[in-house]
């Protein structure tokens, strides 16, 4: 892992911790973001941690870019000592896989896909050596996923599968991005899963849809009353496969204000997780289910 600094014009500094994705790179990015926030450097207007990199936006009339660069490099040394431990929440997100809405959309944009003859799930199952749609759903929903970045559009979580690299699902993005993606689509690109928080353009494979809103600018939905976006970096997501009846019932419950998000506070410790991933995940599931 080698840190690389670059100016993004005269108002940004971009810092890449690693070219490839890992939870180690994520924790470096997060601990830097936290340290920069604490340092309260004058002129900083945005601090954005990402998967394996981060970015700071600043006002060059207040602090010279070269001074900003010096500040960040000094902070990196101190931040490197931070332990990869985070106060986190495990959140259950129900998914209707192979739903009619993403299916309609993926058929509409078939000519932009690597394999126009199969669906996104069938294609991804095949290139990952999974046993068809059922095998795919089992692999996708079997282990939890780690929120390693929030962004692209308002409140969209990037999700990193919490299994050995060789078991992680990988899939390319569409050959050309779609101009449409249903709201709350569960997607995948590279090694990252995501939930599209709003309807719009997108290039990730589409696997299903969740009935649980994750962004509400009006803050009317129960679990979004405190803040309009549900996810923050470090959260953990557990997919729960559901059928159409449960999907419809959940949508109705959300509308009536009766849906209660299943969520528990947990602490995530990267070193412990790496010692025994499946065992660690089992403990997380225990916390979620109250065992």
């Amino acid at each position, binding site marked *: 892992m080698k840190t690389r600094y670059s100016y*993004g014009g005269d108002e940004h500094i971009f810092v890449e911790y690693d070219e490839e994705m890992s939870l180690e790179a994520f924790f470096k990015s997060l601990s830097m973001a936290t340290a920069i926030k604490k340092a309260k450097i004058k002129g900083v207007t945005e601090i954005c941690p990402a998967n394996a990199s981060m*970015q700071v936006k600043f006002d060059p009339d207040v602090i010279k870019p070269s001074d900003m660069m010096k500040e960040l490099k000094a902070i990196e040394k101190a931040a490197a000592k931070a332990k990869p431990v985070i106060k986190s929440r495990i959140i259950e997100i129900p998914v209707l896989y192979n739903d009619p809405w993403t299916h309609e959309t993926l058929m509409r944009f078939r000519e932009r896909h690597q394999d126009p003859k199969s669906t996104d799930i069938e294609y991804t199952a095949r290139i990952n050596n999974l046993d068809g749609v059922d095998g795919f759903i089992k692999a996708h929903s079997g282990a939890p996923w780690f929120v390693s970045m929030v962004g692209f559009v308002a409140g969209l979580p990037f999700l990193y599968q919490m299994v050995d690299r060789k078991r992680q699902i990988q899939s390319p993005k569409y050959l050309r991005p779609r101009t449409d993606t249903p709201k709350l689509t569960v997607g995948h690109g590279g090694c990252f899963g995501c939930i599209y928080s709003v309807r719009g353009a997108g290039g990730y494979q589409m696997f299903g849809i969740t009935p649980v809103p994750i962004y509400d600018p009006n803050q009317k939905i129960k679990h979004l009353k405190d803040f309009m976006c549900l996810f923050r970096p470090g959260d953990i997501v557990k997919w729960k496969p559901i059928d159409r009846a449960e999907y419809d019932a959940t949508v109705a419950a959300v509308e009536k204000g009766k849906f209660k998000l299943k969520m528990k506070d947990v602490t995530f410790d990267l070193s412990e997780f790496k010692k025994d991933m499946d065992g660690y995940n089992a403990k997380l599931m225990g916390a979620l289910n109250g065992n």
Partner: protein
Amino acid sequence: MAINVIKPGLSTTVQDLGRPGYYNIGIPLSGGMDRLALKAANLLVGNKEGAAVLEAVFMGPELKFTEDATVAVTGAELPPRVDGEPRETWTSLKVKKGQVLSFDFLKKGARAYIAVSGGIDVPVVLGSRSTYTLGALGGFKGRKLEEGDKLPVGKGRGTKEGRSIPEKLRRAPGAPAELRMLPGLYWHRITADAGKHFFEDTWKVAPEADRIGYRFRGGRPLEFVPREQPFGAGSDPSNIVDACYPYGSIQVPGGTEPIVLHRDAVSGGGYFMVGTVISADMDLIGQLQPHTTACFVEVTMAQALKARKDQAKLYDKLKASF
């Protein structure tokens, strides 16, 4: 008071100077794309420079006023009319109760800023009145104006008619538009030859040009330095592990068509970027029409900061002209 929207125009939104502080969760700055024009419009009608105004793209709205107000139209050359009578742009004008403000066809530029004394008084959301349409946030009900909307307007004393900004202080893009940029970010992903022709080639603004980003077409495709793709990035050579996108950053999906992100930017994603347009030239992008020719010009950080100072001086002169 209120303004009744008779015709909304093509895409008219409420904008102020934006909503910093939420890019880390994917909520962009938003705000006027041509900030100098937005501030000028406000000063002309006696508002604070960052009051909320209307940003009209390519085509003006038709607005009926329910009280007397001072109005100014800056930015693109979109000549206003009051009850059908032609008026000047970049000049304060009076609109009386019951009168209708309408617009001629666009003559130059892309975005006009319509300031009203007292400012457009929509609710402040996360510190700003700006509209972020993709997230249905802020502005008037989180969307562009529609026929029948009643826009709330704040209290303002207004100014006298005929206040004007001298022509030499109105900044507009040249032909071709020169976008100065600082190479960086993932510049090392392309070959030296590709880096050379990126600056040599003339580009054209594509029809896909909006508040999120401006796409350019017509230059030669960029060749990549060969590498084994890093884990998690995706298989295309233009893919990276999803990272943050600076405002003004230039991504080139597939190496073919550069996209410069603007005020409603997507905050991050998986395409490599060759560098960033300098802050002093961001206003100009908002005034580029589709099919306009443009080229990218390499500058150093020192030059970028000098350009930023010059831009600030221009605004100081503009303020002093009153």
